[in-house]
C-alpha cells in the first residue's frame, strides 16, 4: 500500500449507528475508503470477494460473532494477513485475552473516543509499515 490513506477498511457491526460513527471517525483521521457489513457472515463473504486492507469489527453480533469472524480470517491463507481491530462493549478480561490470542491486532472497549480509535489505528499502521 503506497499511501495509507488509500487503505480500504471493512467496518463490521450489527448496529448501523456504530458503523456510521466508526466510518465518520475514520474519515476524520484520514481514511475515506470504507465499507460496512452487519455481521461476521456478511463480512467474511465480502472479504473473500473483495480487496480490503483493514477490518474493524464488533464482537457481539448475530449469525457470526466477532470471535468467529476473527478465527475465520486467521484460518484463511488469503485473509490472515489482514489486521483486525476489535471495537466492542465486551469488557470481560477473558474476552480481551481470547481476542489477542486469536490474532486481533488491537482491542477497543466501547464507549470509546476519537483519540483512542486514532491511536490504535495508527499503531497498527506503524506495525504494518515496519513488517512490509
Amino acid at each position, binding site marked *: 500500500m503506497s499511501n495509507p490513506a488509500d487503505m480500504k477498511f471493512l467496518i463490521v457491526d450489527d448496529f448501523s449507528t456504530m458503523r456510521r460513527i466508526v466510518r465518520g471517525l475514520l474519515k476524520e483521521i484520514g481514511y475515506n475508503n470504507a465499507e460496512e457489513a452487519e455481521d461476521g457472515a456478511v463480512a467474511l463473504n465480502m472479504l473473500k470477494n473483495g480487496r480490503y486492507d483493514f477490518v474493524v469489527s464488533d464482537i457481539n453480533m448475530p*449469525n457470526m460473532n466477532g470471535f468467529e469472524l476473527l478465527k475465520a480470517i486467521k484460518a484463511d491463507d488469503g485473509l490472515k494477513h489482514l489486521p483486525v481491530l476489535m471495537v466492542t462493549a465486551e469488557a470481560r478480561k477473558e474476552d480481551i485475552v481470547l481476542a489477542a490470542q486469536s490474532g486481533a491486532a488491537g482491542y477497543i472497549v466501547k464507549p470509546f473516543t476519537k483519540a483512542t480509535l486514532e491511536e490504535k489505528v495508527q499503531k497498527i499502521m506503524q506495525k504494518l509499515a515496519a513488517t512490509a
Partner: protein
Amino acid sequence: MSIDLPDNMQMPAASPEIFQQLGQLTRQLHDTMNMLGVLPDLKNHVDNLPDARSRLNYIATKTADAAEKVLNLVDTAKADQEHIATETRKLAALITADPVKAVASGAVFNFVQDVETTTHRVDGHLTDIMMAQDFHDLTGQVVAKVVRLANDLEGQLVKLLVQAAPPEQAQKVEAALTSHHAPIEPRLDGPVVNPEGRTDVVADQSEVDDLLASLGF
C-alpha cells in the same frame, strides 16, 4: 404493611381452621409446582429481575446522558455559529464603508483567522455529537438482554398455566405458543452495567491496554 379500617368496619375473626386450611393449600401448591419442575425455573428467572432493573437503569442513564450531552453541544455550536454571523455582519459594514481600511487595519485578516478557529471548534462539536450516538449500540444490546429475560419469564409462566389448564385448552395454548415464539439467538455479555466490585471485567480502555501489555501484546 398495615391497613387502617374505618371505625364502622370490623375484620371478622378468622377461625384457626381457616388458617390451617390456607396453610395446607399453600403447601400443596408449592409441592405441586416443585413436582412439575416449574418452581425452580421460575425462581431462577425471578432472581434475574434485579439484573433487569439494573439494565433498565443503565439504559435510562445512558439515554439521558446522551440527550444532555447533545443539547449542550448544540448550544455551544449555535453560539459559535452566531459569533461568526455577527462578525460577518461587522466586517461587511467595514468593507462597505471603506474597503481599503478594512484590509489595511487587519480586520479582514483577523476575521479569516476567527472563522478558521471557530469552524474548527464547531467541527469538534459535531464529532462529539456523532460520538454521543453510541448510546444506541450500547443500550440496544442491553435492551436485547432484558427482552430475553422477559421472554424466559413469560415462557415459565405460560408453562405453569399450561400445566394447570384442562388438557384440551393446554394443547391449544401450546400450539399457539410454538407458532408465535421465534427463537432468540444466544449472545455475549454486552456492556457491563454494574462494574463496581467486579474483577473479571475492565473499567476503561487504559485497563484493556494494561492487560494486553502485561500479556506481551
